[in-house]
C-alpha cells in the first residue's frame, strides 16, 4: 500500500470511513524530506456501525489501523486526541495486542482537560469519575426494576459505553471500567498515546488562545487553539463549582441524586429532614395511612364503571421514578465531555486558508471561541477573522443538533455563517463523520446524525462539497456547473475505506 502523499504546497486530508466516529490522517509537506509529515486526529467508531458504512462493509478497525500503518510507514509525527469518547479513541487500545502497540508516535497534543497537573482539569476529572460511578449504580438499579431490554436502559448503556469505551455493543456492568472508570478503555487509549509521545518528550496540553503553534520542519502551517474553554461552567453547564469545590461525602452531598444512586443497599442514605418526621419505608408500608394511600399490592382491581381508581393503585407509585434522572445526567455528562473537545484551526501560510477541526464541540465550547485572539508580529488575529477563512470544516459531533451553531455573520458568537467568507466561500468544504442508517436504526429513540436541517445548511453552503462517512460520492447539485464540480472532484479520491481531499496552499 502506498504512503499518503502531501501536495507540494498545502495538505492532503484523509477521512477514514471506519464507522460512526472520527479518524483523520493529514499529510503536510516537509521542508527537508520527501516524506510527508503525518498528523492523525482520533481513531474510533461506535461498535456495530462499521458494518453499515456501505452495503457490503466488511472492514474492521484493525484493517483501518493497518491502513494507517501502511500509509505512514508506521510513524505518526503528531497524534491529536480531541476528547475522551469511545467513537474517537476505541481504535487505539485493547487488552491484548493494542491496535497502536507498534506504531511510533513522535508527538501528541491533548486538550488542557487531560493535563495531569492542571488543577481545574483534575477537579473536572474527579467529578466526571464520581458522576460516572453514580450513573452506573443508577443504571444497575433501574435495570433491576425495568429489565435490561428496556429502551431507557439501552439508552443509558449507550451513553455509558461512550464514556468508558471499548468495542462491545452491549454495556457490561461487571467490567473493570464500570467499577472504576479510571481503568476505562478510553483512559487506556489516552495513556498509550501519552506514554509513546512521552518517550520523545513530545506531549503537549493545549489551552484556548495558544498559538500560532509551529511544527518543526513544516513551514507551511500554523495552528491556533480555539477550545475547549477554560471556564468550567461552559464545559459542564450544571453544578458550577464555587470555591468550595465539589462537595465530597460531607454535609449535604449525601443528598444528591448521585449519593442516593451510588448507595446500592440503602443503608447509609442521607435523609433531608430530622428523624422525628421520618418513617422508614419498610415500616411505613405497614401503617394504615400509607398502606391505604400508597399501597403494596400489585393486583389491579377489575375494571368497573362504578369504581373510582383505588387510592393505593400500583400504577401511581414512584419507587423508581427518581432513577430516571439518570437519563438527563447521562446526557449532561456526555455533553460535558463533548465540550472538552480540542478545537484547532490549521492555517496554511501562503493562502491563509484555514482547516477547522471542531471535534465534538457543542454549544458550550462554540460560544467561547470568539473570546480568543492572537498577536502575530504587530497584527492581532481574531477568532472571527480566522474562522472566516475556513475552507475545510470537520463538522462537530456527527452533524448533530447543537454541535454546529446557527447564526449570522453579525452574531457575536461563532457559527456556520462565520466560516468560508469572501474568496474562501468558493472552496468551502465540510466533512461529516456519520453512519446515518446505524444511527437511526440501532438506537431507540433514533439518533439524528446528521440532523437534516444541519446537513441541508451544509449542502447549500458547500455547494455540494460535503463528505459523509456513509455516502460513497457527494452528489453534484443541479445549479453547480460541470467545470466547477470537476475542479472539486479532481482534488478528491473516493475509496471504500477513505476519502482523500487535497487543499492547495495557493490563492
Amino acid at each position, binding site marked *: 500500500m502506498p504512503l499518503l502523499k502531501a501536495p507540494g504546497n498545502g495538505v492532503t486530508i484523509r477521512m477514514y470511513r471506519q464507522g460512526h466516529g472520527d479518524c483523520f490522517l493529514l499529510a503536510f509537506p516537509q521542508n527537508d524530506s520527501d516524506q510527508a509529515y503525518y498528523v492523525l486526529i482520533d481513531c474510533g467508531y461506535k461498535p456495530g456501525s462499521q458494518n453499515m458504512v456501505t452495503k457490503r462493509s466488511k472492514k474492521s478497525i484493525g484493517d483501518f489501523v493497518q491502513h494507517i500503518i501502511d500509509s505512514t510507514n508506521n510513524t505518526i509525527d503528531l497524534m491529536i486526541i480531541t476528547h475522551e469518547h469511545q467513537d474517537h479513541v476505541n481504535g487505539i487500545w485493547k487488552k491484548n495486542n493494542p491496535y497502536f502497540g507498534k506504531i511510533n508516535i513522535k508527538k501528541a497534543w491533548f486538550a488542557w482537560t487531560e493535563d495531569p497537573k492542571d488543577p481545574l482539569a483534575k477537579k473536572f476529572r474527579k467529578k466526571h469519575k464520581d458522576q460516572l460511578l453514580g450513573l452506573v449504580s443508577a443504571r444497575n438499579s433501574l435495570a433491576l426494576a425495568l429489565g435490561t431490554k*428496556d*429502551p*431507557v436502559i*439501552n439508552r443509558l448503556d449507550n451513553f455509558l459505553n461512550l464514556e468508558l469505551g471499548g468495542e462491545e455493543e452491549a454495556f457490561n456492568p461487571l467490567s473493570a471500567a464500570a467499577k472504576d472508570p479510571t481503568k476505562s478503555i478510553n483512559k487506556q487509549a489516552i495513556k498509550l498515546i501519552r506514554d509513546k509521545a512521552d518517550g520523545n518528550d513530545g506531549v503537549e496540553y493545549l489551552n484556548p488562545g495558544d498559538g500560532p503553534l509551529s511544527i518543526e520542519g513544516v513551514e507551511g502551517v500554523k495552528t491556533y487553539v480555539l477550545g475547549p474553554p477554560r471556564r468550567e*461552567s461552559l464545559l459542564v*453547564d*450544571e*453544578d*458550577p*463549582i*464555587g*470555591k*468550595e469545590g465539589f*462537595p465530597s461525602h460531607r*454535609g*449535604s*452531598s449525601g*443528598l*444528591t441524586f448521585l449519593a*442516593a444512586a451510588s448507595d446500592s443497599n440503602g443503608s447509609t442514605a442521607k*435523609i*433531608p*429532614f430530622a428523624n422525628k*418526621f*421520618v*418513617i*422508614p*419505608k419498610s415500616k*411505613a408500608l405497614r401503617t394504615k*395511612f*400509607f398502606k391505604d*394511600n*400508597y399501597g403494596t399490592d400489585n393486583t389491579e382491581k377489575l*375494571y368497573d364503571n*362504578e369504581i*373510582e*381508581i383505588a387510592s393505593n393503585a400500583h400504577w*401511581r407509585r414512584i419507587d423508581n*421514578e*427518581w432513577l*430516571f*434522572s439518570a437519563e*438527563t445526567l447521562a*446526557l*449532561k455528562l*456526555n455533553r460535558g465531555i*463533548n465540550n472538552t473537545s480540542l478545537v484547532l484551526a490549521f492555517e496554511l501560510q501562503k493562502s491563509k486558508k484555514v482547516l477547522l477541526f471542531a471535534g465534538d464541540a*457543542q454549544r*458550550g465550547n462554540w460560544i467561547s471561541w470568539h473570546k480568543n485572539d492572537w498577536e502575530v508580529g504587530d497584527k492581532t488575529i481574531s477568532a472571527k477573522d480566522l474562522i472566516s477563512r475556513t475552507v475545510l470544516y470537520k463538522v462537530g*459531533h456527527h452533524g*448533530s*443538533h447543537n*454541535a454546529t451553531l446557527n447564526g449570522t455573520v453579525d452574531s457575536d458568537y461563532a457559527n456556520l455563517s462565520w466560516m468560508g467568507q469572501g474568496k474562501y466561500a468558493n472552496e468551502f468544504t465540510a466533512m461529516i463523520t456519520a453512519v446515518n442508517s446505524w444511527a437511526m436504526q440501532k*438506537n*431507540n*429513540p*433514533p439518533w*439524528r446524525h446528521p*440532523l437534516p*436541517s444541519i446537513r441541508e445548511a451544509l449542502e447549500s453552503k458547500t455547494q455540494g462539497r460535503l463528505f459523509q462517512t456513509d455516502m460513497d460520492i457527494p452528489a453534484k447539485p443541479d445549479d453547480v456547473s460541470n467545470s466547477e464540480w470537476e475542479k472539486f472532484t479532481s482534488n478528491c479520491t473516493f475509496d471504500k475505506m477513505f476519502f482523500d481531499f487535497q487543499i492547495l496552499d495557493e490563492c
Partner: protein
Amino acid sequence: MNNPVSRRLKIFTFDPSLGMKIETNAINQVVAHISWEKDLKEGPIGEYLEVIDYDPASGCFYKPVDLNNPELLGTDGLDPSESNPQFHQQMVYAVAMTTIQHFEAALGRRAFWADHKFIYRGKYRNQFVRRLRIYPHALRDRNAYYSPSLKALLFGYFPVTIIDEHNTPGTIVHTCLSHDIVAHEVTHALLDGVHPRFNEPTNLDVHAFHEAFADIVALFQHFSYQIVLENEIKKTRGNLDTENLLSQLAQQFGQATGRGNALRDALGYKDDETQQWTPREPNPHALSEEIEPHARGAILVAAVFKAFLLIYRDETADLFRIATNGTGVLPEGDIHPDLTRRLAYEAAKCATRVLRMCIRAIDYCPPVDITFGTFLRAIITADIEYAPEDSRGYRIAVIQSFRAWGIFPSGITSMGIDALVWPTGDDALAELNINPGKDDIKGMKTYMKNLLVGAKEWNLENDRYEVWKALDPFKESIWHWLRDGDFYGYAYSKIFGLVIDNDEAPPTVFRKENRPTVEVHSVRPTIRKTLQGEYRTDLVVEITQRRRGYFDKTIQEEMDKPQNTTFKPYDFTFRAGCTILIDPSSQVIRRVITTRGTIADEDQLIRVRNYLNGVSGATGNAFDAGLATSRTMKGRQRDEPFALLHNDQNY
C-alpha cells in the same frame, strides 16, 4: 354548626429566598384562604388533592400533616419552614388549592383531572380520577413535573453547589416550596384535565402553550396576595412596567441554578453585559426566531402580561391624575399609602379579569393542535360570552398586545373582534348555505332537547364523580346524533368540520362499520355568571377524528390509494375535529371551534408530518433532537412529556 368558610394556611409568598433579604423579608409569607374542605384528612387528602410524602431516593416516608389538628387550626397552620416536611405538605396543598379555585371560579364548573385510560379485555377504558396526587419530595433533581400517566405532581430537591451572593453551598432547594413552581405544575394538570391532547405536539406552539399557560396562571396568582401587591406597588410607585416581583417566576430556583435572577420574567431580563435589568420590548418577529418551548412560551406570557399592563394603566389613569393634580408627574419619594391601596385594588381587579379571560378561553379551544393565534380567538370569544359589552376595552388591549408580539391566527382576514370571534352554529350553517326553515329548526330543537335531557340538572354542588358518571352517556348520544341522526345531525357534522361520508374520507382515516369514526371525547357542563349577573349553562363537547400518518410521503400516498384497506403500521396519528358549545336549555349551538382543516385535509397532514420530521427546526439534545418517535418503534418509550421539558437543561 356551620362549617367555616375558609381554612387559613401560611405559605411562602414566593419561596424561602425572600426571607433571606431584608428588603423582602416582610413579604416572605402570607396566609392563603382555602375553601373549607369538610372531610380533609391527614396528608392532606381532600376532595381534589392527595399529598403523599414519599422520598424514594432516601428510602423513607414523611409523617403526614393533619391540618384539622386544633393547634394548627388556631395558628393558620404550621409556620413556614424549609426543614419541616409537614410544612411542605401544607404549602403544596394550599397553593395547589388556590390555583384550583381560580380555575373553578373562571370556568364556572368543578375541576376534573384527566381520566385514567387503559386497555382492559381489548377495550379502551376510562376511569375517574378524583384526586391529583402530589409527591413533594419525589426526586433528587432540579426538576418538578406533572406526570400525565401517574396523575401526579413530582417535585424534586437538590443541594446548592454555587457560592455567590444569593447562594450558600450545601443548602437544599425544595422545588415544592416555590409558590410559582407548584402553581405552574398544578396548572399543567388542570389543563390536561380539559385538553388531554394538548400534550400531542403537532406544531411548535403546542408544548410552548402548555408552558406559557402554566406560567400565566402562576404569575397572576401573585396578585391574590394583597401584602405583596401593595409592597410592589409601593416599590415601583405604581408603575408595574418596571422590574418587580409580580412579573417574575421562581427566584430561588433561578438563582440556585446559576442564573443570578428569577427563572423567568414576563417583563424583562438581566443584560449579560451590563448586568442590569432591562425591559423586553415587544417584537413582532420573535415567534419566527424561537422554537424552544419555554422561550416560545415566554412570548405568549409577555403578550398576556403586556395586555394586563395596558388595562391597568387605563384603569388607573384617573387615580394618577387625581394624585398629581392632572400633571401625571408623581412627586419624588414614596406615594401616598391611600394611593398604594387604591392602585393595589385596581391591579388586583385587572389581574383577576385577565387571568379569568385566559382560563375561560380554554373551553373555547379546538381539541387538538392549539396555536397562540387560536388561543387569541378563544380569549376574545370567551370574553364576548362573559361580557357582551366591552366598555372598558379589555378585548382591544389583548388584541393590541398580541399583535405587537406578532401573535395572530392563521386564515383570518382582519384582527377585528368580529373576525376573531368563533362563529355561532347559525353563522356556520349560513356559511355553508344551509338555511333551514322554521319547521326544520323546530324539529332540530326537539331532537336536541331529547338528546340533552338531564343536561341541565348539574350544578357546582354535585359530587364530581356523580357528574362524571352522568356525562358518560352523552358521549354516546352525541355520537349517534352526528353519525345516524336526521338530516340536521348530518348538516351539523359538516359545520363541525367532520367527515362522515365514506367517499369523502381518504382510506387512512380510521373507520368503524365502514364509516369514518367520530370520537366524542368529552362533554363538560359549565355554569357561568356573566358580568351582568346572568347565569348561563353550556355544554362543552369535543369531537375528533383520526387518521394514519406516515413519516414517508410516498408511503402515505400508497396507503391513501382509493379502495386500499390494508395498512402498514403507521408512524403517527393525525387528528382533526372541533369543540362545540351547546346551550342545553335553548338548544342553541353557541359556538363552533374547528381545527385548521378536516381529517381529509392533505395540507394539514403534510404540515404535521413536516413538523414531526423536524423540518421547522430542532430542540433538545445532541442525539434525538427534532425527531418525533414513530409509533412503530419497538419497546416501551417512557412517556413523560413534562419531565424532560422541565429539566434544567438549555444546551
